[in-house]
C-alpha cells in the first residue's frame, strides 16, 4: 500500500523551480533552515540531509555542497534536495572531513547568498542498518492508528514492523532488540488482547501479559547480551493531568519491581532485593558483559500527594548468567536524589565505557518533563555530566546506543514542544558529544509539519526486522498465550 503512495507522490514532485543564481548579493548571516543542520556531525552513508529554507517565502533554493576531501553535490529547487547516490559518494569520500554548504535563495527575482555552514562527517560509521520506533499520536488515554516502524538510515524508506491495522484496537510498544540485533526482540501488546511478544530462534512467542506473582504486566525490557535472559520491570503505572498551560501529563508508578525472564524455560527469576516494598525499582539494563544489572530505584512515597518526592537513583546488582542468580548487595552508582533530581532510563554503551540516562526534576517518566535532559556517566571515573551539546530547553529523553557505541538516538520535543522527534548524535573516543541532527526526510519541513504522530522508544537495528504482520495480528487476536512461572 505504502509503495503505491510513494510512487504517486514521486510523480507529483516533477514540477519545481530550476533558476540559476545570478547577480547574487552576499549577506553575512547563516540561512534560516529547517532542520537546523548547521554544525552537526553525521555518519557517512546517512540519507541525504535535505533541508528547507524557512522564514519568508522564497522562489528557489540553490545549494552547493563541497567536501573538504573533494567531491561536490548540487541542488536547485524548492528546497535543498540531494541525489541519494551522489550524496552517499560525497559522504564516503569525506569521512573524517567536513562538508561546506553554500546556500543561495531567490526571492522576487533577487538572489541572496548566505554565509556558508559546515557539517562534519564523523570518522565513525553508524554500523547499524536503521532505526526502529513507535509512531503514535500524542494522546492521553486513548490511542488510534499506531504501530512500530523501521527506517533505513541510508534512505528515507520507512516500513511497518507491526501496524495496528492488522489487529485493530491493539496498542504495541517498547520494541527492544538485543544489542540492536533483531534476531532477538521483544515488544508489548496492550488492550483487550494484551501480550508480551518475545522473538527468538526465528519464531514469536506471545506471553500472558500479566502474572499474579509480579502483580502486573511485564514492562520496560532489556536483553542480556547472551540472549538467555531478558530483564523487565513490572509497574503499576498511573497517569494524572496537570491543569495549567505549561504542563500536560504526569505519569507515576504506585509500585514497581524488576525481575529477569528466561525465555527457554518461561521462568521469571525474582529477587527480594529488586522487589522491595519501600522502594520502586524500574528500568533494568544489563551491562555489556552481562554480569551486572543496572536499574533505577526510588524510595516509595505517598502517591499522588507526594509525587514530586519520587526521585530515582541508578543502582546496580551483580548477576550471574550461568545460573541466573543475583548478587547479595545493591550499590548506588549515581545518586541523583542527593542533587534533588531523578535519574531514569539507564543505557550502558555496548563498549562498557558509558552509561547514558535521563535526568529530570522528579518521577519515573521524564518524557513529559520539559526540564528532562540526557546525561552521560563515565563508568571508569564515575563522573556524570549533562550532554549539553545534544540537549535542548525542551524534553530530551529515551535514548539508545548504536551497536558500535559511537552513535545514539533519542527523542526530543525541541521542535514544537509537543511532538517527539528523533535526533542522532555521536560520541567520540574522548567522550565529546556532537550537535545532534533531526532524522532526515525527503522534504523535512513538509514531512514533519504534516506528521501528527510522535516517535517513541527508538532503537538501532543492525538489519531489517522481519515479522509477518498478518500472522502476528492473527496471534494477537487468538488470545493463545504462554504462561510464565516463577522459578
Amino acid at each position, binding site marked *: *500500500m*505504502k*509503495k*503505491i*503512495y510513494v510512487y*504517486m*507522490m514521486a510523480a*507529483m514532485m516533477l514540477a519545481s523551480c530550476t533558476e540559476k543564481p545570478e547577480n547574487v548579493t552576499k549577506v553575512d548571516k547563516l540561512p534560516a533552515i529547517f532542520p537546523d543542520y548547521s554544525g552537526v556531525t553525521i555518519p557517512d552513508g546517512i540519507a541525504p540531509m535535505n533541508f528547507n529554507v524557512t522564514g519568508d517565502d522564497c522562489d528557489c533554493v540553490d545549494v552547493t555542497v563541497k567536501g573538504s576531501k573533494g567531491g561536490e553535490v548540487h541542488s536547485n529547487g524548492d528546497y535543498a534536495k540531494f541525489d541519494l547516490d551522489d550524496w552517499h559518494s560525497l559522504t564516503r569520500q569525506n569521512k573524517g572531513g567536513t562538508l561546506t554548504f553554500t546556500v543561495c535563495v531567490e526571492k522576487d527575482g533577487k538572489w541572496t547568498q548566505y554565509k556558508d555552514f559546515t557539517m562534519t562527517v564523523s570518522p565513525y560509521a553508524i554500523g547499524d542498518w536503521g532505526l526502529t520506533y513507535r509512531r503514535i*499520536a*500524542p*494522546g*492521553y*488515554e*486513548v*490511542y*488510534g*492508528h499506531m504501530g512500530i516502524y523501521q527506517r533505513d538510515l541510508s534512505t528515507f524508506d520507512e516500513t*511497518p514492523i507491526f*501496524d495496528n*491495522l*492488522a489487529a*485493530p*484496537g491493539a496498542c504495541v510498544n517498547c520494541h527492544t532488540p538485543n544489542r540492536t540485533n533483531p534476531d532477538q526482540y521483544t515488544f508489548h501488546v496492550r488492550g483487550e488482547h494484551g501480550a508480551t511478544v518475545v522473538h527468538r530462534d526465528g519464531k514469536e512467542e506471545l506471553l500472558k501479559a500479566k502474572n499474579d506473582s509480579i502483580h502486573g504486566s511485564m514492562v520496560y525490557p532489556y536483553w542480556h547480551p547472551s540472549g538467555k535472559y531478558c530483564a523487565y520491570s513490572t509497574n503499576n503505572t498511573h497517569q*494524572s*493531568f*496537570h*491543569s*495549567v*498551560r*505549561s*504542563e*500536560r501529563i*504526569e505519569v507515576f508508578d504506585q509500585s514497581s519491581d524488576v525481575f529477569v525472564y528466561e525465555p527457554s524455560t518461561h521462568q521469571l527469576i525474582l529477587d527480594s532485593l529488586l522487589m522491595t516494598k519501600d522502594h520502586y525499582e524500574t528500568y533494568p539494563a544489563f551491562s555489556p558483559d552481562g554480569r551486572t544489572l543496572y536499574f533505577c530505584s526510588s524510595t516509595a512515597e505517598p502517591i*499522588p500527594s507526594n*509525587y514530586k518526592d519520587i526521585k530515582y537513583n541508578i543502582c546496580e546488582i551483580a548477576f550471574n548468567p550461568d545460573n541466573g542468580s543475583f548478587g547479595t548487595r545493591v550499590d548506588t552508582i549515581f545518586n541523583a536524589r542527593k542533587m534533588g533530581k531523578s535519574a531514569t532510563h539507564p543505557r550502558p554503551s555496548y563498549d562498557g565505557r558509558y552509561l547514558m540516562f535521563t535526568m529530570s526534576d522528579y518521577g519515573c517518566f521524564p518524557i513529559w518533563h520539559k526540564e528532562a535532559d540526557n546525561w552521560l556517566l563515565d563508568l571508569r571515573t564515575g563522573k556524570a555530566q549533562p550532554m549539553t551539546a545534544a540537549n535542548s530547553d525542551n524534553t530530551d529523553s529515551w535514548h539508545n546506543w548504536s551497536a558500535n557505541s559511537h552513535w545514539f538516538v533519542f527523542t526530543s520535543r525541541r*521542535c*514544537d*514542544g*509537543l*511532538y517527539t522527534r528523533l535526533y542522532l548524535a555521536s560520541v567520540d573516543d574522548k567522550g565529546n558529544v556532537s550537535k545532534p541532527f533531526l532524522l532526515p526526510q525527503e522534504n523535512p519541513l513538509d514531512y514533519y*509539519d*504534516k506528521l*501528527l504522530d510522535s516517535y517513541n522508544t527508538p532503537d538501532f537495528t543492525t538489519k531489517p526486522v522481519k515479522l509477518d*504482520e*498478518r500472522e502476528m*495480528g492473527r496471534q494477537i*487476536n487468538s488470545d493463545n498465550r504462554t504462561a510464565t512461572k516463577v522459578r
Partner: protein
Amino acid sequence: MTIKSFINRYSSLLMALAVLVALFLFWFVGYPQALNYQEENQLFLFSTDYFFSRFAVAGGLADWISEFIVQFYHLPWLGALALAFLGVAVQRLTLAVVSHHASETWTLLILSLLPVVLLTGVMGNENVLLSYEVALAMVLAATLGLRRISWWGDIVIVPLLYWLAGPMTVLYVLLRIVGDWRKEWWTILWLLAVELMAYAFILDEYPLKEVLLGINYYRIPLVLDTPGTLWIVPVVVVLLALLGRQNNLMGWLDRAWVAACACLIVAVAAVICIECWYPKDRYELLMQDWLVREGHWQDVIDRAEKYQVRTTYSSNAVNLALAMTGQLADRQFEFYQDGPSALIMPSVRDNFSNLPSAEAFYHLGMINSAKRYMYDIQESILNGRKSGRCMKRIAECFILNGQYKVAKKYLDVLKQSLFYRSWAEEAEQCLYDEVKINANPEWGYLRRVRYKKNYMYDYGQMDKLLGLLVVNNNDNKMAMDYYMAQLLLNVNIRDFMNYVGWVMQQRGYVQLPAGYQDAVRCIQSHGTAPGSVYAGYVKTRVMSNGVNDKQ
C-alpha cells in the same frame, strides 16, 4: 396533453423529482444531526497527499469522493441536497440497470425506489460511511456505461473498479451475469483473485475480511464489527435485475394492482427502515450533539423539556445548556440528572460520549481538560480519521495556552480544508499576539477565568476542581454554578449549605435561585418536602447506591 398522459410520459422524471424532494426533506428536516455526526468525524483536506493517501487503498476513490461530499454537511441544507442528488443517482441508475432488457413498467419504476430506501435505512447506522453509497453508485454507473464492453474487457475493468470502488465491484460482476444472462462465472473468480492478489501484494497491513468486504464502507474495522445490513442493498439490486430480465413477466408487471403492491412494499420498507434503523434515543442524542456544537443552548433545553433520553450524555448536554443560558441554578433538577457524572462524564473511549463534557471544560476555562478530551475523542475515531471539530478546538486550546508552534501545526492542517480555512487563517493572525488574543471576547474571557495555579486532575474530586477554579477567579460565574451543581449531585449538603450564601453574593443573585430554594427546602425537611425535584433526585441516589458520606 391530459394529466394522465403527462404523468405517463414524464413518470420517470417525476419520480426522480419526488425522490430528490423526499430525500432532501428527510435529511434536512428529519435527520440533520446525522449529517453533523458524519462531518465531525472526518476532516477532508484539499491536498495531493490527502488524495493519494485515500487512493492507496482499495475503494479509495469512492472514499475520497465520499469525504469530499461529507464536508458539505457543514451546511446541513447543502449536505442534504448533495445526499438527495446522490440518492436520485442511485435510483436512476438502478432503474436503468433493471429495465435495460425490459420496457419501463410502473412496477419496475416503483421498485427502483427500493434500493435507495434501503440504502437510506442502512445509513441510519451512523457508522456506515457515505463511501458505501458512492461505491454503489459508481458500480451501477460502470455496469450501465460499460455494458457494451466485451466480457474480456472485465479482465481490466474488474481490478480497476475494485481499486476505485472497493468490493462493491461484486455487484458489477453479478449484474453483468444477470443482465446479459450469460454464464461468465469466471468473472466472479477473477474478482476473488484480484482481491486475493491485492491482499497478498498491496494491502499488506489489512486483514483478509476487510480486503474482501470493504476497508472504507464502515467506520469500525470489519474485523471488530461486521453489520450484515451492508449487503442488503446489493442483493436487492441483483434481485430487481433478475426481475427485469424476466420478459415473460412484463405484462404482469404492468398491471395496476402489481404496481400498487410494489408501492406497498416500498412504503413498508421505508417505515421499517426508519423504525428499525433510526432509533429515537440515539438520534435524540445526536441532535443534542449538533445543538451543543452550534451553541443553540435554548434549543437543547426546549427539546429536553419535551423528551430527554435518560443517559449521562444527555444530562451533560442539558446542564451545559442550562449553564450557558444562566438557568442551571434555577432549573437543574427539573431535568434528568444521571448521578454525580451529570455535569462532566469521566473519560470514555469512544468518539461521541465525551463531547458535551469537553465543551463544558472549555467554557469553564479548564483548557487542558478540554484539550485532553478532544484529543482522545479524535483518537477514538475508529477508522483513524481526524475530526475538523476536534482539531479546531484543540488548536484553540493551544492558542489559549500560548503554545503557538503546536497551534500553528493544527491551523496549517485546517487551512487545507474548505469550511475551517477562514477560521484557521483568522486564528493564525492571533498567534504570538497577546493583545489580539485577549481582545477576542471568548478567548480573552477564558484566559482570565482559567486556572492560575497547577492542580492535578482527579475526576473523583470534580467538586474540588470546580471550587479551585472559582478560587482562582471569582468572575468565573459558570464555575460557581457548576460547583454548586456538583455539590448537589454529590448530595454534599454540608458544603452546599456552607457556600450557598457566598455564591449568592458573588453571583449577584437578588434572591436564592429556584433550584437552590428547592434544595434547601429538601434539606431542611430531611428529604420529605412535597413536590421537591431535588428530593426526588436524592431518593433515587439513595435507592441506587447510597449517597456521599459527607451528607
